């Protein structure tokens, strides 16, 4: 399932992170991801989101993710 793929990729990218993946519509391609990680500390929002986009580059590129909403937060 796509949600599990996304969660695994985020777990790999943010091993210490607190991660939530929600299938917003139940259709398996619109997701809300929330990541709380010390990797975001001191970074502007755009750089935080770029890290998440990079972690999910494959499912974003191949259309597994049709829509992605991102919420990020540092731990500091």
């Amino acid at each position, binding site marked *: 399932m796509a949600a599990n793929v996304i969660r695994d990729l985020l777990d790999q990218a943010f091993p210490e992170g607190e991660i939530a993946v929600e299938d917003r519509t139940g259709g398996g391609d619109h997701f809300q991801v929330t990541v709380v990680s010390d990797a975001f500390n001191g970074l502007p*929002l*755009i750089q935080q*989101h*770029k890290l998440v*986009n990079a972690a999910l*580059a494959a499912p*974003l*590129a191949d259309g597994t993710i049709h*829509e*992605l*909403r*991102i*919420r990020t937060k540092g731990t500091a």
Partner: protein
Amino acid sequence: MSALHDQIKQVIDTEPVVVFMKGTPDAPACGNSLRALQALWQAGAPIAGVDVLPDPRIRQELTALSEWPTIPQVFVKGELIGGADITEELFASGELKAKIDAALGADREQSVRTVEIALD
């Protein structure tokens, strides 16, 4: 570099605030594009909207330039601000208005228009 690439780059470089979106400001075709537009409007931004839907190459060239995979994409004075989530978050915190005030001056006209990308 293709003509399309140059055209997109020129829009990013010359429009004070531009949103690459699905649909137009008059007829947004995606909830996220609408969210970005609403946040920009409430922050008092003059908005130029570019529809990426007429040709998939627009989105491909844009993403190659911006290194941002999703639509919408908001640029202020040539700088990528982010997508709908960041634009909304920055609006809620007051940073979006501050950024636009700093870039364009607090005393500004607010307008919304559509910019067409010419295709071969």
